[in-house]
């Protein structure tokens, strides 16, 4: 919980203000989650502050909510192609992805339970950036990463909006498959991938999960003959 709040403070996600007239704050609550590794061991405990987005009203608190993700068959195709070309596959995880992007709409939330600032109980937080549970949070994040990738000379696939491709002058390929805050990256040259990782780490807070091993609950194992999925 402490870590989550620190992450929120660091991103300057909110500020404490008096509620303006005619505005309604949205409730927040804590959600606790245990992340497990493929063998069932606990990898970390997480507390996440979420807003109760179902209290938001269309047109008032949010407008557009659509955000694309890659389809699973696309993930499999990329793994198949990469394996056939002997390219290496890497996996990146963006930390607090939904907290990164500035909000267009004005949204107010109540103070989180058990972390109410003493003496200022009647104040509410005004959100500067998106928070988990908000209707527009996934879209806000997607717009952000999209503009970043386009700026890095990536082209978005026209039929599959979760896939980005970059051709370099030397004929090298870099393919990215985006699944919300997970990125599956494959490249014909190891050098390019290193440069790209450096770039994206400057922009976002990223966990480098190394070579592809466990993506969306599917286990991938490299063997002598190929990549084995189960």
């Amino acid at each position, binding site marked *: 919980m402490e870590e989550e709040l620190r992450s929120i403070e660091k991103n300057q996600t909110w500020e404490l203000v008096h509620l303006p007239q005619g505005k309604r704050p949205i409730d927040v609550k804590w959600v606790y989650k245990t992340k497990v590794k493929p063998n069932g061991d606990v990898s970390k405990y997480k507390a996440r502050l979420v807003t109760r987005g179902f209290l938001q009203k269309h047109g008032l608190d949010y407008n557009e909510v659509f955000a694309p993700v890659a389809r699973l*068959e696309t993930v499999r195709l990329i793994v*198949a192609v990469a*394996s*056939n*070309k002997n390219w290496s596959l890497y996996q990146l995880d963006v930390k607090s992805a939904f907290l990164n992007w500035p909000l267009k709409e004005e949204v107010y939330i109540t103070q989180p339970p058990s972390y109410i600032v003493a003496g200022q109980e009647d104040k509410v937080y005004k959100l500067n950036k998106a928070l988990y549970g908000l209707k527009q949070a996934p879209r806000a994040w997607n717009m952000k990463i999209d503009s970043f990738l386009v700026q890095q000379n990536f082209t978005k696939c026209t039929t599959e909006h979760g896939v980005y491709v970059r051709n370099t002058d030397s004929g090298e390929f870099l393919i990215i498959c985006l699944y919300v805050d997970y990125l599956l990256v494959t490249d014909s040259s190891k050098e390019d991938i290193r440069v790209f990782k450096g770039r994206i780490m400057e922009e976002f807070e990223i966990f480098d999960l190394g070579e592809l091993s466990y993506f969306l*609950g599917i286990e991938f194992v490299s*063997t002598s003959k*190929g990549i084995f999925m*189960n």
Partner: protein
Amino acid sequence: MMDYNSFITPTETGIKLQIDGDEKEVDHTLYKQIVGSLRYLCNTRPDIAYCVRLISRFMEKPKTPHFLEAKRILRYVKGTLDLGILYPYSQKNIEGEVFGYSDSDWCGYKDDRKSTTGYVFKFGTSPIFWCLKKHSVVALSTCEAEYIALLWQPVKLYGWKL
């Protein structure tokens, strides 16, 4: 369930399940949880796609035979936990080639007389996409059923909407 013996096939051949019947109803929530988990498992296991599709038709009113079928799939999965799909390194002569295959039955589902189609796309030797689906229209002949099945392939490939 853990100490049950495993099965070597996920389902009996030619099994016919129906909605109506006077068997006892089973726990809906448990049944739906099993079907939901199995459907996610289908993402890596094309071999159980057919029978998972078979049992997922009875989510509304699961009865004893449906539940037994679900349990049989679980027992099959238990015996085949180490199976998966291999994406081999450096295959020759498959530069950008994706193959699709499809097949269809006719009136396989007795409750509404609709046919079922299965199709699979392969990249080289490894499958990348597969699907089993009941038609949304009634086919009047086996030939018509096969045509409907064929139509689905480009629909999937090019992202058309029907």
